[in-house]
């Protein structure tokens, strides 16, 4: 089932599983209770999604006018809600989605490039200050990111960078955990002998890196990319603080804004708004779910890198 890109455990596991299954066929029967527990857990984890799917189909009347909150109303109103969502306030929602994509991709790709270079450098070169530098990065993993937001805001305000896209993209480039993951992965995945062989053949350091090391680092790169993209797509505090022009908002801050507007109208006044908030929430989670489903064979193994020495 291709569990992990970390080579060794995979093959071991494959043979191990075979032995396990054959040696004790009774255990399959004994696992029915476990399956039930698992099914219940799944219901718990999926119920908010279900609520979102069902309720984004409703018009304001059936959203508030009784009927089950966990089942569809009389009218399935997706089309109307969709139209409302993408036309409300001059179609600003589409812009928010675009902003989120821009921030997540620019920040995520940038952070990954920096992390790959630095992680490889830390893993494969002994240079002055390496150990100290790496210790500092490990320390930085423990600095809470939100504690950095207000200081960064004040600094950016001095530099005139607040309320620009850079105020959101630049801080996203900082990903010490990504550097840590890349370094740990590169140490094992890129054999020194291979690098030496390339050097003997006359390749320069960067050519060696690009042609020999980079392909080997791909699983960790996908993981770091995915983690950075997700964290910047999901970021709320940073753009909330940095941006005041709502045309620059990412979708998280935009929906937060709608929600506070709708709340201040009260449940009755903000009825149309609530319908588009719910559909807007659903639409905003779809890109990440697709990303995770398509890239799952990479991230699942990749996430273990930090924990497997």
């Amino acid at each position, binding site marked *: 089932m291709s569990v992990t890109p970390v080579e060794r455990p995979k093959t071991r*596991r494959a043979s191990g599983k075979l032995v396990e299954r054959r040696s004790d066929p009774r255990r399959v029967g004994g696992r029915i209770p476990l399956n039930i527990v698992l099914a219940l857990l799944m219901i718990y984890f*999926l119920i908010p999604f279900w609520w979102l799917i069902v309720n984004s189909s409703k018009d304001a009347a059936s959203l508030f006018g009784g009927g089950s909150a966990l089942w569809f109303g009389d009218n399935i109103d997706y089309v109307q809600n969709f139209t409302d969502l993408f036309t409300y306030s001059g179609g600003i929602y589409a812009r928010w989605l675009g902003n989120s994509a821009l921030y997540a991709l620019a920040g995520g790709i940038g952070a990954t490039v920096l992390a790959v270079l630095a992680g490889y450098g830390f893993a494969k070169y002994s240079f002055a200050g390496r150990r100290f530098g790496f210790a500092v990065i490990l320390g930085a993993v*423990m600095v809470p990111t*939100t504690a*950095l*937001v207000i200081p960064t805001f004040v*600094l950016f305000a001095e530099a005139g960078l607040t309320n620009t896209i850079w105020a959101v993209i630049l801080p996203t480039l900082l990903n010490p955990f990504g550097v840590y993951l890349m370094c740990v992965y590169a140490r094992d995945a890129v054999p020194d002998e291979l690098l030496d062989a390339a050097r003997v053949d006359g390749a320069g350091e960067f050519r060696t890196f690009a042609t020999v090391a980079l392909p080997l680092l791909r699983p960790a790169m996908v993981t770091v990319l995915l983690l950075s993209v997700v964290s910047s797509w999901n970021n709320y505090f940073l753009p909330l603080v940095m941006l005041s022009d709502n045309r620059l908002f990412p979708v998280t801050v935009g929906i937060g804004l709608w929600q506070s507007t709708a709340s201040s109208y009260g449940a009755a006044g903000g009825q149309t708004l609530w319908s588009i908030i719910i559909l807007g929430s659903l639409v905003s989670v779809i890109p990440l779910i697709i990303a995770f489903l398509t890239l799952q064979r990479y991230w699942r*193994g990749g996430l273990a890198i930090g*924990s497997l020495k």
Partner: protein
Amino acid sequence: MTVTLATPERESATHNKKGRRRSAAARQNLVGWLFVGPFAVVFLALLVLPIGFAFYLSMFQSSLIGGERFVLFDNYIKAFTDPSFLSGAWFVISFSLVLIPLQMAVSLAVALMLDIMTTRFARFSRLMIFMPYAIPTVIGALMWGFLYSSNFGPLAEIFGIFGATAPNFLSSNLIFYGLLNIVTWQWAGYYMIILYAALQGIDPTLYEAARIDGASQWQIVLRIKIPLIAPALLLILVFALIGTLQFFNEPKILQQLAAGAIPNDFTPNMYAYQQAFSLANDNYGSAISFALGAVVFICVYIFLFATRKRGSFIS
């Protein structure tokens, strides 16, 4: 940060023996820094500089009459005697004390279950349980806010079937549990995947050997699996600790839905936000941010140092 400083000189000492080696070392130095350099620049500009600047700002007070005034640690003294800051800090600490064990127990239990199940259903549910991680915390909080809400929510319905009144997780009595549920829902799947991947990395011949020695399934779990994934457990504990102490998004989003249950000083981060942006008090906001960051850093570092023998995270 001084933990791993022991041996950098050893390498350069051996390099110095021969001139040829020395030039190789110089080359390593240069190329190494070329790789690390870009990140180092970002690191200095976006971490060291803001922290330094925040620390600088936190030592001033500004007022309409007196202008900027150097007050050294007055802002910190003010913070640590400010009931708003202290109540937020206390909330975050008590929340972590309940949340982290709960989250770790749930994710460990699920990971252990999934580790022994190889069915298609198990694989599918693994993915589904992970799914909340892909959801922005803002949307997650919003979804649960709706589910809790008496206007939209099914909670009243479900409890109605049994003739009971639904608990209001948005009231000030129960908001603690309401948030506990949201955060567990959001992160348990992510932690589960980390633990699951670590479990998959264990050599299965160990289980065979244990079984031949007569070990039960439980003994294998307690004596082999859990000790061997200790580094992964430590990693998620650190993540959970860092994440919880900087709690902001969920209470901020629920604030409007939970009328009155979540004040502006609910967590230290919310308080810092209010100080810096609603009250335009950058100095005090910076002091709170800096104090929060420093406290989290010190706590996590002490914790990692105390457990360094078991974990590989900082070794």
